[in-house]
Each structure stands twice: as C-alpha cells, then as structure tokens.
C-alpha cells in the first residue's frame, strides 16, 4: 500500500462531564491511505464519530486530547488550538457529512442558497450563473428531482432522506481530499442508497478522494469499503481488508457484530444480540473491554489488555484468542456460513 495520508498514533481523548471523566478514545492507532475507502464500524457509543471529529476539530468543548498525534500533510492536527488553524482544514482538505442531517442545515435558508454558499466558498472564480448551474447539477447528481423548484425550498419541506442527500451535495461541492461520511445513508431507502454510494464511489475513483465511511450497516460496508476498522469501547479491536473482515473475522466482537445482522436472521426466531451492557467508559477499563460480554473470554482477557496480533500484513486483531497459548476456538456457525458465502436474502 502507498503512504498514509493521515496517521493517528496512540490517541487518547477524554470528555469531562460534571466532575467525571469519560475516556472516549483509548490509545487509537490508525493509518488512512490515500485513495482508499475505509469503513469504521462498531457499536453505538464506541467512538466512531468522536474519532473522525478529531480530524476536523469538531468535538464538543468538554472534550480534550490527552495524548497522541494525528499527522496530516506534515501537521499534527492533535496539537491544533486555534479556530483559524482548523478553518484551513475544514471543508477544503477534510469534509464531513454528518449523521444528523437536520443539525447541519440551516432551517431558515433555502436549500439552494446553502449549496451555493459552499460552492462560492471553495471556488471563488465562478460567475453567479455558473455557480447556480453547478448548484442545480449537484442536486441532480444526488438524485433530487426537479432541482429548479427544490432549490427554492426550505429544509423542513424535504423528507429526511432528501435532506441527507443535500448535505452530501454540500460536502462534495467543496472538493475535499478526505471525505468523511458519518452514517451517510441510514435515512435513505436502499435504491437511493445504492445510487449515492455509487456516486461517492465514482468520486473517490475519479478524483482520488480518500473516503472514510462510518456506518452500522455491514451490508453497506461490503459494498463500498476496501478496508474495515472495527471499534469497541474507544479502541480499534480489529482491522483488515473487506474480505478479511467478512470471510475471516477473528475478534469475538466482530463475530458478534456480524451475527446480529438481520440478513442472517431467521424469522420467528430471536436475532442474535450481544449480551450485557456497553462498557462503562467513566471507569478504568481492565483487560479487554469486551470480555464481560464475550462468551469466548479467557481468564487473561479480564486481566490484561490484549496487544494486536498480526494475521497478515493488512489484518490484525486485539484478542488473546490469537495468542499461541490460547485454546483453539471455532467461530460460530453463522460466521462460518458467511465465510462459505452461503447467505442469501430468501434463504
């Protein structure tokens, strides 16, 4: 693989909350390579959004980076202090499509005006007419019918999915180097989702954009990503190519995550779901954070945090199961079925 465009090293981020401290990112290491499509998956609250917001200085004011670095183009983003430093990065270099479309749109301005603003900000040499044509093109590109009419409307006149597509149009208008899509398509129906993913994929290919997708939907991940990072409790517990994660997952949390997909469920039976509650990040995490919910946990998992075990140059996982001394554990049947590629929608 080529050089990383962005490199995260031993990143620790904490939130202070009424006298308590929440350890949201725990020693995260991650290299993002130029032109790749990296997906970050993991349970709600595992730190996916917080991690990527670090690349844009967008975390809430009560959050602070305690240690670690984020290298981008010779700069350490983790050391940024001033808004003025971030303004050079945000939108222009790294752009983000947020999870919640309503919060990233101004309810008082028309959709057209909001896209125009972004186009004008980043392509200053366009005439008003050119900018307008571009704006209508962008709306059309993200699948909004009748863009002339729609551009004059306000966010509340759009459905949830249409608002999300507008937000995507705005981010793309900036022509960023890294595009972060935080749950870009959860609000969209599958046909539009397929269109948007194709659109983002094309842009990634043609303009060499590096894409980072954050999503809950492993089906979506299978479609768009070349590499997948699995997060649990503020840490990346497994990372590998798309094939490695789907056909040869090694961390019990990855097994659990894949097993709970409704595509693998049987009607009338309970869907597999992970027992227990999420790790409490207010308290110090001992050993492997997933251990209390892990049916395959070893004694060691409660005592000492596992290191990364390397499975291939592209694949590694943090679980003591991979230690030479550990007993041999077979993944659950449903996972083996997935590796044999025996899942189908009507099966």
């Amino acid at each position, binding site marked *: 693989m080529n050089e990383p465009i962005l490199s995260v090293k031993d990143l620790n981020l904490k939130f202070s*909350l009424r006298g308590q401290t929440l350890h949201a990112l725990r020693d995260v290491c991650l290299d993002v390579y130029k032109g790749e499509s990296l997906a970050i*998956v993991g*349970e*709600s*609250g595992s730190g996916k*959004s917080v991690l990527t917001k670090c690349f844009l200085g967008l975390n*809430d004011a009560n959050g602070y980076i305690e240690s670690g670095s984020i290298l981008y183009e010779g700069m350490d983003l983790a050391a940024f202090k001033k808004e003025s430093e971030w303004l050079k990065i945000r939108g222009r270099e790294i752009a983000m499509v947020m*999870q*919640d*479309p*309503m*919060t990233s749109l101004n309810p008082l301005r028309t959709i057209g005006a909001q896209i125009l603003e972004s186009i004008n900000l980043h392509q200053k040499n366009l005439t008003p007419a050119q900018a307008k044509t571009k704006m209508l093109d962008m709306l059309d590109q993200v699948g909004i019918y009748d863009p002339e009419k729609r551009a004059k409307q306000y966010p509340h*006149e759009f*459905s*949830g*999915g*249409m608002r*999300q597509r507008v937000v995507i149009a705005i981010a793309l208008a900036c022509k960023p180097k890294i595009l972060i899509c935080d*749950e870009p398509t*959860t*609000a*969209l*129906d*599958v*046909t*539009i*989702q*397929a269109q948007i993913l194709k659109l983002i994929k094309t842009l990634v290919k043609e303009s060499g954009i590096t894409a980072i997708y954050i999503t*809950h*939907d*492993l*089906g*979506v*991940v*299978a*479609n768009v990503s070349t590499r997948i990072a699995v997060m649990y409790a503020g840490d990346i517990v497994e990372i590998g190519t*798309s*094939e490695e994660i789907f*056909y040869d997952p090694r961390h019990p949390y990855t097994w659990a*995550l*894949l097993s*709970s*997909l*409704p*595509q*693998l*469920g049987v*009607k009338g039976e*309970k*869907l597999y*779901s*992970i027992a227990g*509650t*999420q790790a*409490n990040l207010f308290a110090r995490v001992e050993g492997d954070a997933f251990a209390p919910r892990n049916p395959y946990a070893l004694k060691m998992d409660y005592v000492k945090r596992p290191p990364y075990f390397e499975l291939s140059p592209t694949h590694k996982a943090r679980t003591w199961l991979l230690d030479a001394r550990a007993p041999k554990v077979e993944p659950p049947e449903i996972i083996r079925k*997935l590796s044999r*590629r025996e899942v*189908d*929608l*009507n099966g």
Partner: protein
Amino acid sequence: MAEPLLSVKNLSVVFGKRRHPFVAVNDVSFDIYRGETFGLVGESGSGKTTIGRAIIRVVPTAAGEIIFDGKQINNKISKALDKEVTHRIQMIFQDPMASLNERAKVDYIVSEGVYHRYKKPEREQKVEQALRDVGLLPEFASRFPHEFSGGQRQRIGIARALIMEPDFIVADEPISALDVSIRAQVLNLMSELQKQRGLTYLFISHDLSVMRFICDRIAVIHKGVIVELSDTETLFKHPLHPYTRALLSAVPMPDPISEREKVLEVYDPGQHDYASPENKPRFVEIEPGHFIHGNTSELKKYAKMLGKDA
C-alpha cells in the same frame, strides 16, 4: 380475519398553498390488524412519515378516513377521544436529534408523557425500567440528550414511547440510526413487547432486510401511492411491481464479492402508461391478501407472473 385496529381508507394528504398543492399521500388504503406488525417501505420522500403523522393527528388529512378501534380519528374529534388516542397511539420518530428536547434531562424526557400518571418513586422506577428495556444504563437519566451518541439518543426516544404503555405504535425508522447489535436488541424487544402486551405496530423503514425479519405484512409505497401490499414471504418470493423488484435487488448483503457483482434492477416510473382514462391504474387483490397497483394490461401481466390466467 378479525376487526382491524387501524383502518386507513382512501387517505390523501396535501401540502402547500392552494395554488401549488403537493399531494404527498394519494388515495392510500390499508388495514392493520390487532397484534400484527405492518410494514411501510418506500423511497425517501414517498410519504411514509406523512402517513404516520396523519395517524398521530399532527398532519391534517385532505381526504379519506382514519379509523382507530372503530372510531374515526382524523378531522375534528371530541376532547375525550383526543386524549384517549394521544395515550393509545405513540410514535417513535425518525430523527432522534430533532425530536428530543435539548434542554431537558433524560429522566424528564422519558417520563414527560406520564408525569401526572405516576408519583415520584414509581415514576423513577418506570424511567429506570424503560431505559433498561432499551438497553441504556439507568445512570443516564440525569444526562442531557447532546451528551449521547446518535444511537443512544434514538433509544431514549423509544423509551419515551414505551413508558406510555400504548397499544399502537407508529415506529418511524426506529432502528435505522442504531448499530446492528442494538438493532437486534430493539427488534427482539419490539417482538417481545408485542407478544407480552399485544402491541400493534406500523413499522416504517427503507430497509427490506429488517422488514422481512419483523413484519407480518408489507406495503410498498412510491411517490404517495401504495404499489404493492402482501404478506412478507409472498412479497419476497413473488414480487410483482417493478418498484418492489428494484427495492429487493438493492438490499445490501454482508458479502463483499456478491455486493461487487450485484446487478441492480432500476425502476423507471416512466414505464407505466396511465395517461388515458381506459388505462387508469387500480389497486386490486390479485391473489388472496396480495394487492397490486396497475392498469388492465399490467394486471394481466402480473397475473401471468403468478402463473394464473386473469
């Protein structure tokens, strides 16, 4: 079959000014039976949320009737019925950020609807139970919504509906903001609550893989019109309408190789020829329990696809 709990008859909802009306929901009819999970699936902007909002009475209806437990609940109704309906029908909202009061703490948000129903220690217990029911820690009760991740906020919205002990829930994309593990929990929870309390759901989603798992029957809506309605297995095994077929072909599968080889069926609404009066489409029961929207020649074709002569 038994009496429907909710009956929607020829419902239309129109937005906009009189000079530029926009028909968001167009002559839609369906019944939802007590204890079932009825799915509504369709593309973004097709009118799913609007139908849900018409049922909880926050969007006025332009035509048609909504009948709940034998009584009409759209248009003007008595105060007593309004109060009854407000308790018995709850909605879980699509947009967790926009639907939660940002300045209130979680315990207030969750207990708001039952604030006067229970006194303090009992109310706290109910909040605690509701939070546990949706997989959140009871300690979260004293936090504000912005301190939660997107998925956690959605679960607060579900707890808030559950605590009302409704018998009909409009669940508008209740799990699309949730990660798969919590998604599985919430789906299992919804099924369990349904068994225990005899709940009835209108389940709105764009994700057919989830709907196949949870819904007894599914209606497919496109641009405000229901194009196909049937029991779930029939819809998956014998989809008739080209839009239904397109939706099914696009369902993402957790398999990178098949995803890469996947062929999407594209739906072109222009393929229907509904212009002349004799080609006007109808919504008919083409086989028992299986409804389809089409004109005479399309209906013939659909019947043939089912191996029948029309």
